[in-house]
């Protein structure tokens, strides 16, 4: 077996391990909860011995924990996450209706992070002095601004004062209107991450700019623009892609805060509502799904980074992070 196959198998085994452990933790939350799981399932309804017995039988509560877990995991793998006590709906169906909102918001936001972060980073690296300083101050503040603070500031300025964008809530129709509604949430979500990415891009660019091959290219008479595009940006892209990828995973988690602040119907706001309503089937499903996507995105980034920058070999990278 060669090194790369072994590395890939190792990563895949690690991935499965993480998912197994987290799925067990997610499953166990209901069982660890203070009080009896039946109390949660009853939701304050009067408990006659018959209903309790029926509930215990329905949810296999009298089986050993391992058997219960296996059954739950099997159902989850088939897409059956149980029923939401809050919405009286199958959890899978409920997730389906909410997936689109989160997907659109995170996608919009990721685009802003990529364009804004890389753009500002390149700008700062190429224009030392005032521009660089301004970008550094701006990104310094951006990285210290939590998404819900950006949300508040954006709403008070662009929605209440200027009236350019709609405030929280509302039911948009059509894609254009949806994007209009999602602009402030996407910016709020993007701010922190764009600030960080701009800083990473800036330093990666500065590292490359100081290298000899750049001087050589310039001395050969290659146009300045081409030097930046072909020699500096291309070579500096490695760390930018790695950090940017981990940020995509971060966006997927932070979205719950932004969705709540802006009343966006998505998975994140559903998670927050379900925790408040003690709707455990939904909480389990959303957390399990989030961890799975989070881990998969991180793995994808690790595997894709060497394709973009061949100097990052999978093997040395794997050893470096272990």
């Amino acid at each position, binding site marked *: 077996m060669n090194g790369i196959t072994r590395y890939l198998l190792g990563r895949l085994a690690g991935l499965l391990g993480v998912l197994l452990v*987290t799925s067990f933790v*997610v499953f166990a*939350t209901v069982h660890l909860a203070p009080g009896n799981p039946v109390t949660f399932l009853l939701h304050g309804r009067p408990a006659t011995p018959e209903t309790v017995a029926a509930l215990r039988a329905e949810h296999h509560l009298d089986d050993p924990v391992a058997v219960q877990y296996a059954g739950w995991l099997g159902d989850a793998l088939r897409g059956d996450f149980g029923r939401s006590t809050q919405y009286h709906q199958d959890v899978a169906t409920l997730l389906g209706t909410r997936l689109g909102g989160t997907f659109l918001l995170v996608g919009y936001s990721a685009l802003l992070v990529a364009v804004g972060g890389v753009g500002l980073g390149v700008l700062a690296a190429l224009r030392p002095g005032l521009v660089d300083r301004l970008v550094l101050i701006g990104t310094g503040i951006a990285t210290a*601004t939590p998404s819900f603070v950006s949300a*508040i500031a954006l709403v008070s300025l662009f929605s209440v004062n200027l009236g350019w964008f709609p405030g929280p809530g509302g039911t948009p129709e059509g894609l254009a209107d949806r994007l209009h509604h999602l602009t402030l949430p996407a910016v709020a979500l993007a701010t922190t991450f764009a600030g*960080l990415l701009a800083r*990473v891009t800036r330093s990666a660019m*500065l590292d490359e700019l100081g290298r000899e091959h750049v001087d050589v290219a310039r001395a050969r008479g290659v146009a300045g623009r081409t030097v930046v595009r072909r020699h500096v940006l291309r070579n500096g892209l490695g760390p930018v892609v790695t950090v940017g990828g981990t940020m995509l995973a971060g966006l997927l988690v932070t979205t719950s805060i932004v969705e709540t602040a802006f009343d966006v119907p998505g998975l994140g706001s559903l998670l927050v509502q379900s925790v408040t309503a003690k709707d455990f089937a939904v909480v389990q499903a959303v957390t399990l799904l*989030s961890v799975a996507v989070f881990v998969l995105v991180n793995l994808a980034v690790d595997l894709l980074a060497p394709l973009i920058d061949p100097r990052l070999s999978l093997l040395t990278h794997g050893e470096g992070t272990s």
Partner: protein
Amino acid sequence: MTLTAPPAAATALRRRPGLRRLRLLGGQGPLFTAALLLLAALVLVAALAPLLAPYDPEAMDLTASLVGTGGDHLLGTDQSGRDILSRLLYGARTGLLGPLLVVAVSTVLGTGLGVLAGWRGGWADAVLSRSMDLVFAVPGLLLAIMLVAVAGSGMTAPVVAMAVAYTPYVGRLVRGVARQEKARPYIESYRVQGWSGRTICLRHLLPNIAPTVLAQSAMNFGYALMDLAALSFLGFGVQPPTADWGAMINEGQSAIQQGAMLPALAPSFCIVLAVVAFGIVGEGIADRIAKRER
């Protein structure tokens, strides 16, 4: 992990030599001092809140709802007619206490596990590193939300979840530094003199890696402050009517629609200011270490 992404990125940044040149917001010296002074003032305010606050932070007065700035209330009142300045001052207490607990627990735990993994190597390292990877795989915010679902809202669940989530950040860093230190000749010379591993670790290894840990902890403090405020904003952290910056922003949201910005913007400003200050101090210490090693 949004909120946990930043520390990961921060650690990644520090490992890049190019970033050692990076100055957070301009010149190093005076800014670092200013940030330290600001943090000292914050601690003082939190300690002396009962003396400084002009009003009871939880006293409602519905006849004085959303009063403007100046007059009887320097920063005005919120929707329930509570004095915003007093709530900000008291909010510094919960705002600092939560992150303090998170950072204290994660630093002690992370340093212990990191030194153990880096010093021992072998199977201890393998087991500890795998476990830390596992915790890394679960975003802190998600962990906190899950814990709140089980244990209920309040300070406890978010603080416990964040302490667990931040431990691997410290642990990985310390493991790396401990391995580097262990390979240095001075450690070997103590060994030759017959010192026990424990004594070398406690007397020499720990003091030598302490500044690195301190830099990471200062930055973690800011991130933990953001994370805990986010959880309070979601209604999972400090519960009303207790004054807390995150909770104040949540309560101030509806006032914004009525044109009153201050109830939400004032605590927002405090959070950003505190986080910026912790960031500057953290990077400043990291910079000093980098300079000394060069």
